[in-house]
């Protein structure tokens, strides 16, 4: 399965969630997306968005100001 990347550094929530949501719409079940952000709010918001929409958070890591979240697209992924 492909792994995709999304850079949302310097964006404040909810923009990282919106960009993630819009990117995930283009992916298929089982693909992974690695999101790099700087707003600490993503540590709560992206996992919450994943839980609501049936995606899985694989891991969250931090290096300096960068926060990296890897998610796997779930079966409920919809085109809308």
């Amino acid at each position, binding site marked *: 399965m492909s792994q995709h990347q999304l850079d949302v550094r*310097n964006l*404040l*929530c*909810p*923009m990282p*969630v*919106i960009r993630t*949501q819009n990117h995930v719409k283009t992916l298929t079940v089982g693909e992974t997306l690695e999101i790099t952000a700087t*707003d*600490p*709010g993503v540590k*709560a*918001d992206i996992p*919450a*968005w994943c*839980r*609501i*929409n049936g995606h899985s958070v694989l891991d969250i890591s931090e290096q300096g*100001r960068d926060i990296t979240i890897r998610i796997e697209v779930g079966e409920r992924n919809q085109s*809308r």
Partner: protein
Amino acid sequence: MSKQRKAVALISGGLDSMLAAQTIKNQGIHVEGINFFTGFCVEGHTHAIRKRDQQKQKRNNALWVAEQLDMPLHIIDVVEEYKDVLINPKHGYGSNMNPCLDCKGFMVKKALEWMHENDFDFIITGEVIGQRPMSQRRDTMPVIARESGAMDRLLRPLCAQSLPETLPEREGWVDRSKLHKFSGRGRKPQIALAKAFGFDDYAQPAGGCCFLTDENYSKRLVDLWQARDSRDYELDDVMLLKIGRHIRPRPHFKMIVGREEGENNFLEGYRKQFATLRTLSCPGPLVLLDGKLDEDDWALAARIAARFSKDKNGVSVTMERSNLDGVKSTMHVTPIHSEEMAEEWHI
């Protein structure tokens, strides 16, 4: 077998929209949430940026509500489209730069478009008659329904019994007797309903969920428009209005002064878009300069910036000046005295 009816709920993240959505879910309707990002939404950005606040728990309230209600949520970026609502509000502004009535009509209209695109049946909001002086009045509620185009597909579950029947009620998709007739600014009925639903944690932002209702923020926005002689903005502009001290010592330039390390880090992201000043000889703020500065302006700006450094009472502070083209030079200045800082410079 009757068709499963579907409603799209405007979710702000506050208690009322949460209660409205749950009220309709309890009637067996499939409900999905929609949340619009205008750029002016209060989302704890200041906390996200300021270092001292970074350990505080943060959450997006709309996402949190959706999770509590076990319903999907769609967050829609409407920053570009929203400009016309803010710049040209047909119904004017509230006490600050809040175009509440036009804003609500716009959001319901966007929800209606989403409803049609996704084959949903009606729209619900958490509006309560009399709760807001501009957008939530008995006489303005029909205006929103009419101007958005939603008409009788717009259901307000928390005050529906005080309003004319809507399509979902007439068709029997929802039971009107199980809707509510809340009114006024009191919160007791909502708190009681939240308790009945088992909600013991919910957001109740005292100033609403929009920066445009904030007096200081509105002043900064008006100042921006006046200085540019244009009522326009980009997302970066409205984000920067939330951050730092804003000082306009001359009509043709403004300083944005970071107040602490987290704000300085955030302002660093704008270094390529602005001329900047920062202290070299002691700790101090990063300062963005918006406007065209001559040499006298640079000298004044540097003295003001030095005023917010650790050596504010010193004789000489060394500053790094960075022009918009990236060319850097060094300045030595005496921090401006507080008495020389005119009150009206502070925006």
